[in-house]
């Protein structure tokens, strides 16, 4: 059992900002989509656009941080232990079996997390950003303008943007649940709030962990 500083200040700031923004974007976005009614369409559009721009700023900082710290490597998908991790969530977790992947400062994510987060970063977020930007800055065909900037209609863009939104809601639900599957119900949440987590390594022999990770 060792108390480690797992999540750096920026990382936590980024995570929670992102969480806030995605929830807010989802809320206003589904209002624009016509699924819910809260702010009213006009206000929802304004707020959605403000949040979107804020998110873009955050993304720029996050990319910079990931690149300069090399933390981006955390998200490189691996097949190692993937099966074991799946089996853990399907069977092991109910038998109180140990986590198959040891969480360390240098390898914070289990193979399933790597896969899902990489998917978010490489597919869903870029999809949302690009379709969102087109949504904001598209132009209808008009005379005397640069034709290459025109799109005939919003249908494709809006459909992709909505699809991404549904994926994010799905992720959000699963994510909220899965944070309860740490060593204790709240250990993951605490770690993301404070940065510190008790990295237990192997429950039976804590000493083994440090050997493995180095």
């Amino acid at each position, binding site marked *: 059992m060792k108390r480690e500083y797992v999540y750096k200040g920026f990382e936590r700031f980024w995570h929670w900002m992102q969480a*806030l923004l995605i929830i807010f974007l989802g809320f206003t976005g589904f209002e624009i989509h016509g699924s819910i009614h809260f702010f009213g369409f006009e206000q929802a559009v304004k707020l959605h656009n403000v949040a979107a721009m804020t998110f873009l700023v955050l993304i720029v900082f996050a990319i910079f941080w990931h690149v300069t710290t090399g933390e981006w490597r955390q998200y490189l998908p691996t097949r190692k232990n993937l099966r074991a991790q799946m089996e853990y969530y399907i069977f092991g977790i109910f038998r109180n079996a140990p986590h198959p992947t040891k969480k360390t400062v240098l390898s914070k994510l289990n193979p399933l997390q790597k896969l899902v987060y990489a998917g978010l970063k490489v597919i869903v977020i870029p999809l949302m950003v690009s379709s969102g930007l087109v949504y904001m800055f598209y132009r209808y065909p008009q005379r005397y303008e640069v034709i290459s900037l025109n799109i005939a209609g919003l249908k494709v863009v809006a459909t992709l943007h909505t699809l991404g939104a549904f994926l994010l809601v799905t992720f959000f639900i699963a994510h909220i649940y899965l944070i309860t599957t740490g060593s204790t119900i709240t250990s993951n949440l605490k770690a993301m709030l404070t940065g510190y987590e008790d990295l237990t390594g192997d429950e039976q022999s804590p000493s083994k962990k440090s050997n493995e990770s180095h």
Partner: protein
Amino acid sequence: MKKTIISVGLGVLVLSLTVMLTLTDHGTPTTPLSTLRMKYRQKETPSVDHMQFTQLKKHFSTPQEVTSACIACHNERHKEVMQSSHWNWERQEYVEGKGIRTLGKKNILNNFCIGISGNEQSCNKCHIGYGWGDEKFDFKNPLNVDCLACHDNSNTYIKAVGGAGMPDASVNLTNVAQHVGKPMRVNCGTCHFFGGGGNNVKHGDLEKALFDPTRDVDVHMASDGEDMQCVDCHTARKHQMLGKMYSVSSMNRNRVECEQCHTALPHSDDILNKHTLKVACQTCHIPEYAKVNPTKLYWDWSTAGKLKNGQPYEEMDSNGTDVYMSIKGSFVWGKNLKPDYIWFNGTASHYLIGDTIDPSKPVKINALYGNYDDPDSKIVPVKIHRANQIYDTQYKYLIQPKTVSTKEGDGGYWKEFDWNRASEEGMKIIDLPYSGKYGFVETEMTWPVNHMISPKNKTVPCADCHKRNNGRIASLTGFYIPGRDYTSWVEYLGTGLILVTFAGVLIHGGVRIAASRKQKEKST
């Protein structure tokens, strides 16, 4: 913990900064409204006082004498007037599929009082000339030009009912001649507010309430506001007025546009400005028309001709609006109406005299062209006027009946109530055979709604169109509007994913709780 508080604080700071920056109004509109207000509040004082002209200090026994006096000084103006459609009641228009045709009030049919041919004595009260009572009227005689209808500023000039454009006997011509000036709303409105035989019958957005409107009725013409006159927008150059109506014209030209003053990017909000490419100003800024008095929506000529004790009669509804007249049939009126919406590119087609119709479906007297994919098209508000009107069942074309009767036995329906006679005489005048068999056919006319602009705070809210069901433009489909449209498979897939995930979480969590309880039981 300290760090957490700092990062959360930082987050809130960044968020609120961005919100403030984005919500702050940076851009000023291209033409500030204050500038426009200044411009139109400045009322011009005329540069001459016609009262002082000796030429006008005399008794005029005929209106032609007044015209002669006008022309004596303004010695080229009558030529301009005589080239205008106000004078000719026709102009050359290209009609798609029909080529270049000469059309206008002179020869076109509508689905209100139908047409002027044979009825000039009454209809042509609104012609800017004297004595167009039949087809023999001399369009080349300058003395027939009625300068006063438009330029009377004494507010005492009226034309005689059934007088073919001659002034009413009560008019003091000398007084009127000495009080001429720029046309005011009352000059234009006298005719344009009463088209179709009564107030607001035709347009719905042009009616007597605009003589003295409040801001709520029309922000531009409001007496308590800018008090703009018709000619402030319908500007004229050499007596050729800007603007026309698609009931009598076909081409995308000579239109009055809000952009003349407000520019193509009038809003400070870019999202609104982007709308102007596909949505006409009127669409959002005229939430409703016929704001004060009702307008006619349906006119059924087929019920005309009922008599009580051999006499024609009228029936009114509780608001004092005609719902039945023996001479015209039955009407449906509407007030505070939401417009219909169509795509419109500025071109229109027309039913022209002699065109064959298909009586099995409503005949489009005029049809406005446009669609989403056409870069010239915008969504515009319109009034649709429907009618049931007379046609020749054998030759399959609309009939121009003679309605107005000027002398005994001329067939005028409003005296004789005999459709056969009225058709026979009317068709004779427009040189088309009448088979002797008539029926009634449903017809439709589309009238763009352009006036009665509401104040900013009464503008159509975004959500009136951007909503799932029953939006204002629900009938316009084939393109994507956020808030209204969606792609069904994405909705099904997305909702399915969410439900499955949620169920999975519940089941997984449930089993976990159950399993841990079991283990606790075991361990105790």
